[in-house]
């Protein structure tokens, strides 16, 4: 009897312990807290000079310098289903000085500098089954231009993670502040409430009483873009990405302080169509040769309905001096045809419906070449933990229009 009881008790406890193996240990499934995963500081200095400023009708100095600074904070979280959530917050601030900007007033007394502030926030989820989804918003503000950007993206990675397809939709709902050359702005009449119609057809209203003010109107410019990207690992050393983008714009697509001079000596503000469709198609191909050399290549074909066709080709060859240091010389070639709306200084006919002397829309070729140095020491830059990488880049740019520029950029990464 005792043996039976002991056996039954023993069986009872063994069954209990067997079921206890199916009590799932949940400690490993705790949601990870949102954590700061990476910080990037990106700064750049750009300067240019040339002799075809659009502010002065296609002639005059294009001297300009720009300092830009962006800080990016990336937060990451993973849940019990192995879904990865990323929050990406960026704030950028640019300061530029432009000699031509001073000549918005013919006396050269306009303010020759400006600032731009541009924060953005992006959220993305990457699910364990390879599906990803993202949303984003951005703002950009400068004295003559205000932008609100919205975007979404969806993507799918194959099971073997060799193929990735992604679609991104973007919308920019912008406002152009109609700051016109001074000779086109009517002078306010003291103590007299009134409205005037400007040369570009905008109505300016003045305040009443003793304190007349000029209210500069704003007009919309909208941009809608869809981007499809297909990335494919071809073999252990080679991978490719195809990028197709369609961009549709409507609204005020010129700039209100760009002058155009005509064959009879008269002068107007540039006038461009209120719609534009762009189609850029790009391909990136990266190949790892041996153990030390990589070829990073890019080609883009571009066409739009303003008559511009362009080809871009670039090649960068990183050489791994060591596992932690790479040096990359690069070269970029660009060629474009002219838009039929473009003509140089004083060559537009009064019968032209659309007219601009902005050399960005002329026919030219350009070259951009320089060097990139990337340092990623194992123990951190200057042995500082978390100071993960320094990426330094310099390039010299020339156009057949005579424009020349230099650009230097630096990226500090903390991880």
């Amino acid at each position, binding site marked *: 009897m005792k043996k039976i009881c002991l056996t039954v008790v023993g069986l009872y406890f063994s069954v209990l312990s067997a079921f206890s193996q199916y009590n799932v240990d949940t400690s490993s499934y705790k949601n990870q807290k949102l954590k700061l995963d990476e910080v990037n500081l990106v700064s750049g200095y*750009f300067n240019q000079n040339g002799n075809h400023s659009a502010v002065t009708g296609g002639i005059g100095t294009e001297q300009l310098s720009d300092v830009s600074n962006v800080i990016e904070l990336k937060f990451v979280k993973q849940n019990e289903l192995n879904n990865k959530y990323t929050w990406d917050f960026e704030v950028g601030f640019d300061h530029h000085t432009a000699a031509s900007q001073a000549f918005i007033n013919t006396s050269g007394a306009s303010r020759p500098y400006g600032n731009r502030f541009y924060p953005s926030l992006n959220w993305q989820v990457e699910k364990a089954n390879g599906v990803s989804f993202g949303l984003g918003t951005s703002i950009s503000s400068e004295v003559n231009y205000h932008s609100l950007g919205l975007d979404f993206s969806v993507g799918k990675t194959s099971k073997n993670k060799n193929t990735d397809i992604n679609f991104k939709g973007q919308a920019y709902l912008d406002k152009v502040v109609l700051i016109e050359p001074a000779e086109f702005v009517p002078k306010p009449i003291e103590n007299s409430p009134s409205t005037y119609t400007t040369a570009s057809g905008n109505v300016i209203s003045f305040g009443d009483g003793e304190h007349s003010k000029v209210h500069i109107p704003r007009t919309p410019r909208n941009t809608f873009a869809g981007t499809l990207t297909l990335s494919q690992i071809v073999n252990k050393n080679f991978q490719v990405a195809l990028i197709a983008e369609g961009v549709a714009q409507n609204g005020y697509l010129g700039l209100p302080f760009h002058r155009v001079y005509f064959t009879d000596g008269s002068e107007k503000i540039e006038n461009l169509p209120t719609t534009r469709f762009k189609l850029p198609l790009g391909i990136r191909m990266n190949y790892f040769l041996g153990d030390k050399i990589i070829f990073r290549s890019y080609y883009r074909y571009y066409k739009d309905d303003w008559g511009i066709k362009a080809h871009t080709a670039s090649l960068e060859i990183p050489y791994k001096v060591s596992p932690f240091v790479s040096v990359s010389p690069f070269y970029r070639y660009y060629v474009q045809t002219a838009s039929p709306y473009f003509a140089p200084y004083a060559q537009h006919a009064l019968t032209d419906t659309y007219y601009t002397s902005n050399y960005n829309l002329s026919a030219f070729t350009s070259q951009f070449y320089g060097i990139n140095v990337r340092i990623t020491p194992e123990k951190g830059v200057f042995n500082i933990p978390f100071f993960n990488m320094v990426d330094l880049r310099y390039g010299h740019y020339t156009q057949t229009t005579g424009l020349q520029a230099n650009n230097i950029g630096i990226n500090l990464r903390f991880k």
Partner: protein
Amino acid sequence: MKNKIILITAIGLISLGLTTGCADVKEYQKNKINDAEMQLNARKVEKTELNFQSYREGASGANGGKVGGGCGCN
């Protein structure tokens, strides 16, 4: 029209070739593919040069840079 058909056909053939004629590379074989210099996008440090190129040239897009909105450029 003929050029458009040729271009679309070429893109389609390249896409088909890439997705069907490629090796099945395992995760443990991706040490070179995963190298930072092999990324299939522009470096973050290229941000300012992508901006000035879109400001100073007629073409833009398909490179991770501006597509035309968000700035006072054409």
